[in-house]
């Protein structure tokens, strides 16, 4: 069950600044066609649980980012809003629902959390993680410079926590992309 697990979260970003996250979590393939997040510290498990809910009530600014104008032509934009946007909303909702259902299977083992989910859910996870990161970034108005910084946030404010969440979810996204790219 625990074979083929690779510790990819040894970065100090997750271990150092908060003092509350003192163990890296493990990303692995516990069985063919199955992906696992194992030994998830409780603060990171809380962040994961929030993923499907982070864009439930989008600000106007976030809404504009989720559903950008397709063109500078007014008529096309109006048609897009009427005919394409509902399909995108459904797509985003489906992704969040898939992830939400997977997260319900998260189990506590000796104070840490563990989650296995089907590899075929990777597209839904990538989409839901991106939604969550975009919603956080828009809500807190992060700049590209801030998000590109390699320095771990100090965690002095809710905004710092939001950046930690964005970075953590990005690390999972990177790993899922690498799984797909490796085939």
């Amino acid at each position, binding site marked *: 069950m625990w074979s083929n697990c690779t510790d990819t979260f040894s970065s100090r970003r997750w271990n150092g600044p908060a003092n509350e996250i003192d163990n890296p979590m493990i990303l692995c393939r516990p069985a063919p066609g199955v992906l696992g997040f194992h030994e998830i510290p409780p603060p990171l498990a809380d962040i994961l649980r929030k993923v499907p809910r982070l864009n439930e009530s989008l600000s106007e600014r976030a809404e504009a980012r989720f559903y950008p104008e397709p063109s500078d032509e007014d008529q096309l934009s109006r048609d897009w809003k009427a005919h394409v946007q509902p399909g995108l909303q459904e797509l985003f909702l489906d992704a969040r629902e898939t992830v939400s259902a997977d997260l319900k299977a998260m189990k506590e083992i000796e104070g840490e959390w563990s989650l296995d989910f089907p590899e075929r859910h990777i597209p839904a996870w990538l989409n839901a993680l991106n939604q969550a990161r975009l919603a956080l970034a828009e809500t807190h108005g992060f700049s590209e410079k801030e998000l590109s910084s390699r320095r771990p946030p100090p965690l002095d404010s809710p905004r710092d926590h939001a950046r930690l969440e964005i970075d953590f979810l990005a690390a999972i996204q990177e790993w899922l992309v690498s799984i797909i*790219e490796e085939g």
Partner: protein
Amino acid sequence: MNEVHAISPCVSAMAGMTTELPEIREEEALDLPWNVVVHNDPVNLMSYVTHVFRKVFGYAKDRAVKHMLEVHRKGRSIVWTGPRERAEFYVEQLHGHLLLATVERPGK
């Protein structure tokens, strides 16, 4: 969506006229290749954007990386050029992956 730009019935009645009609220019524009442009944003990961280009357009990794880096460094990249309807389809796909993408008229 494209019917917005369809030629109005009056155009056929005016077929013999030589004046430049906006509708005709529109028709010509429809035949020209349109650009799908992806714009930079601070949140999407470089690896994710590369992955999306490969998935949506079927690009080889090198080509996908080239466009991703162009977006990152120059703020935008024309990732595909072709018929308008197909361009709109690709923009819809890119929006579905939460990338900032637009369809642009030829010559813009």
